[in-house]
């Protein structure tokens, strides 16, 4: 019998549509970026990439991303821990608040920060009196990048930690572990894949963020220009090859990120099969004939069913 939606026509139509759309909207633009970047040869591409302003933009972008990740990591883990391990009034509200950066347009986020921390802003004017400048400088870029990316880690962790529950941590504590030990030895190993996944997403977004950063950075070449802003600037200056050369760099980072993500997923899938239950010894023990005089537990098979595990604990 055929399953619903499995008619040959429907199937071919859907697959064809999906492939066509992917090619048109995903693959083609990606190819176009690299084609444009190299349209006047490798030498021109290289001279554009090794331009001092481009190099600075690359550096700034990477530094911002590197600073954003640990902040989001700590924030995300703490938040996920709070939301999944404690019940307190306002917990649901907090869970909704986490999504604000997703819901708000990045430009609006940038404007809010400008309004608050800008020279004439509520907090900014006070900071200005103390000679602290946040907006139109790298701290401002960092602040909005953190704002935009902070939900990623928490979003990845919350469903997982909810599903895993706190039993293992409770078990650790009944065995005498301190909270800190329980976190490092029990919680963290259980969430590490989700954590890394969250970091990858955070990184992708931090590197590519345009809207919020463009509002607060001022886009001063060689000072507060990140790579996405730099691409935009070059394009506005009619330096198409330069713009696409930088864009190609961004696309390359994105591809690397995707590769890392795919690698993680592949490993996770392999881990699943490795730990899977299809080699459960119980199914084996049932087929082993039992002799009558056994104590209840001696029916466990010993040698013959042992599986070679190879290199233990690869991770």
């Amino acid at each position: 019998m055929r399953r619903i939606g499995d008619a040959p026509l429907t199937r071919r139509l859907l697959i064809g549509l999906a492939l066509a759309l992917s090619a048109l909207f995903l693959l083609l633009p990606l190819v176009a970026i690299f084609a444009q970047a190299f349209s006047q040869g490798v030498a021109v591409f290289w001279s554009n990439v090794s331009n001092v302003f481009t190099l600075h933009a690359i550096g700034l972008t990477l530094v911002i991303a590197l600073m954003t990740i640990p902040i989001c990591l700590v924030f995300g883990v703490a938040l996920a821990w709070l939301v999944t391990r404690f019940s307190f009034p306002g917990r649901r509200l907090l869970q909704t608040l986490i999504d604000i950066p997703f819901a708000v347009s990045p430009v609006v986020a940038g404007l809010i920060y400008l309004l608050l921390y800008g020279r004439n802003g509520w907090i900014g004017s006070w900071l200005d009196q103390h000679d602290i400048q946040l907006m139109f400088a790298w701290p401002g870029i960092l602040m909005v990048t953190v704002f935009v990316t902070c939900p990623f880690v928490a979003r990845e962790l919350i469903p997982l930690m909810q599903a895993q529950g706190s039993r293992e941590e409770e078990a650790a504590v009944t065995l005498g572990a301190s909270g800190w030990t329980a976190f490092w030895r029990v919680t963290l190993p259980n969430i590490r894949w989700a954590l890394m996944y969250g970091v990858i997403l955070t990184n992708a977004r931090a590197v590519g963020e345009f809207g919020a950063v463009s509002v607060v950075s001022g886009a001063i070449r060689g000072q507060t220009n990140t790579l996405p802003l730099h691409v935009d600037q070059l394009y506005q200056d009619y330096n198409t090859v330069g713009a696409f050369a930088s864009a190609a760099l961004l696309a390359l980072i994105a591809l690397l990120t995707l590769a890392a993500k795919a690698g993680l997923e592949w490993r996770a899938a392999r881990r699943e099969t490795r730990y899977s239950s299809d080699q459960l010894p119980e199914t084996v023990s049932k087929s082993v004939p039992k002799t009558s005089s056994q104590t209840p537990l001696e029916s466990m098979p010993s040698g013959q069913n042992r599986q070679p595990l190879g290199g233990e604990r690869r991770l």
Partner: protein
Amino acid sequence: MSIRLHNIAKHFGATQALEPLELTINEGELVGLLGPSGSGKTTLLRIIAGLESPDRTCTPSAIYFGERDVTQVHVRDRRIGFVFQHYALFRHMSVYDNVAFGLSVMPRSSRPSSAEIRRRVFRLLEMVKLEHLAKRYPAQLSGGQQQRVSLARALAVEPDVLLLDEPFGALDAKVRQELRRWLRHLHDELNFTSVFVTHDQEEALELSDRVVVMSNGRIEQIDTPDTLYRAPKNRFVFEFLGDVNHLEGHVANGVLTCGDAHVAVELPDGHEELLLRPHEIRLAEAPSPESHLPVTVTAISPVGAEVRVELAADWLEAPWLATVRHADFERLALSRGKRLYAHLRRWHRFESNAASLRSPATS
């Protein structure tokens, strides 16, 4: 190590999970906390463990392990072993590392050497007959094996008391039976004080020295399995400890009438409800002057030491369950649809917490 609970109560928000209660568990005892879900048995166990804290009321509550007051002592310092319902093994650690965990997190000063840890872990694994699986991961083990790892892990730290939360709840009937016997054996051998939670009355009655029956956050009765079954203190305990048949009707002049059925009982006039265990019903081909209870056989299950027979009648609200010896089963030539007469060997009746057990008027 004995366990003494004084004035322990617990609220979760507005709901009362436990009413203030007293409980003493003697040294070396294996005690079962038995009750339906929501009766507060797991909460009580978790309070003993220190995973939950009792309500702070005006009258102070206290928990003693032996002479040690552990009311304010943190879980990690209570020296308990806790076995979780779904094992809660550390999924990313091998069986060996799971069992070694409690020893390896000890403060450096009191921690045994790694050779000593190894020796102790393997002794425990030997005890639970899993030494050949030391390198496996929890997901590669069957439920019963996981539960034994979890037990070995709890015992590794040499706890004063062992607490088990529905230890066999997630296992299939056969493995459960084996593990039950094995736990009893282990308990007798090592002689620690154990408390376990279960909703399975058979498990509680078979395994425990004493059973604490709970419902709605209250302790209904604490007794040995034997006393509990023979002399339940109230209707709840009676109904919870086995299959129950109901007979409801009006008594007039020593005869309880229910539709076209009637049976002689020595009770004052009025509305009555009698409770019967399946083995307290006797089936016969004919009514007697004292008992006229016509029933029809609707289902037969000939598995086990006795044949279980389901009986229906239009004067019954819910069908009855009766157990018949195989010999009687053959003698009566029971089959579905057969009409018979039920006789009562004895019956039970509860009025406001007082139990009474009687035989029918004359029989």
